[in-house]
């Protein structure tokens, strides 16, 4: 039995509460960092993180990238997408192939 968590600023993540996901409002990068580490230790399989916070938490995200759980998935916050999620796909391709071929 795994859990799904959402980390982000209050306005961006409040809606997910209605879906029954576990929401962890974090206004600053520091709060988000703590929440991230705490949730990674518990059995969260998926963590959704807003891109606005993810931009400041790159090392922490990289740390969990090669682990099986949790899967940290970036979602656009209420200010819109920063394109980090798409850039990450590009990075993955570059990592695997050695060049961006898409």
């Amino acid at each position, binding site marked *: 039995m795994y859990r799904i968590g959402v980390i982000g600023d209050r306005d961006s993540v*409040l809606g997910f509460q209605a879906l*029954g996901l576990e929401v962890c409002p974090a206004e600053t990068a520091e709060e988000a960092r703590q929440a991230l580490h705490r949730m990674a230790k518990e059995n969260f399989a998926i963590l959704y993180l807003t891109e606005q916070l993810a931009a400041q938490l790159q090392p922490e995200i990289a740390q969990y990238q090669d682990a099986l759980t949790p899967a940290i998935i970036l979602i*656009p916050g209420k200010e819109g997408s920063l394109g980090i999620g*798409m850039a990450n796909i590009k990075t*993955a391709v570059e990592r*695997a192939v050695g060049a961006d071929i898409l």
Partner: protein
Amino acid sequence: MPSTTINPTRMELTRLKGRLKTAQRGHKLLKDKRDELMKQFMDVVRENRALRRRVEEGLMRAHASFTVASALMSPEILEQSLLCPKQSVELEMTFQNVMSVDVPRYQFQTKSQDPGEVYPYGFAQTSGELDDAVDALSRVFQDMLKLAEIEKTSQLLAQEIEKTRRRVNALEYVKIPQMEESIRYISMKLDENERSNTIRLMKVKELVLKEAIEDRRAENARAARAFGPARETFQEE
């Protein structure tokens, strides 16, 4: 360059030849693995991009409705209405093996199947925009789970491909040439030893022969001296 210390012996040569064969077979297998992983990875990445685009659009729509809702309602009531969710999600995770990489597969179950049940609040005090937001979120949620699965898969595959690629390159450009070089070095050395051995034998034979000839000559000389006068007279006549 023959690496620091290799014994130029026949045993070492046999051992190295065995290792080279293993390395070549390993190299071929790893290369096949890399190619297959790459194929899978490309499919996953394409799906990943499409899915991400869809999720981001869906979420932006949900956020837009949500922003309107939060403008129309007081923050307290907004929070209050969403505080106790009726819906809850149970997630099961299994693993699928893709070319020896374990990738997660998620199965989820919502507590209530009725899509109308997602609204955890009464409709009296909330604005319609909030309904829209929650509705949009619940619709994009399926895709979000799929996205989590695909994106994690692509990350894990990328990691595995990188690892395999490094191994293939290390074997192809370092290990195998090194071993070939060592094998060449040893076989040259062995040939060289063989030749020097032959030469030594020839030299020894020459020495022995020379000695024998000199012995014979000395003997002849002695004999000549003993019978010397006779021969001289003989010669004079």
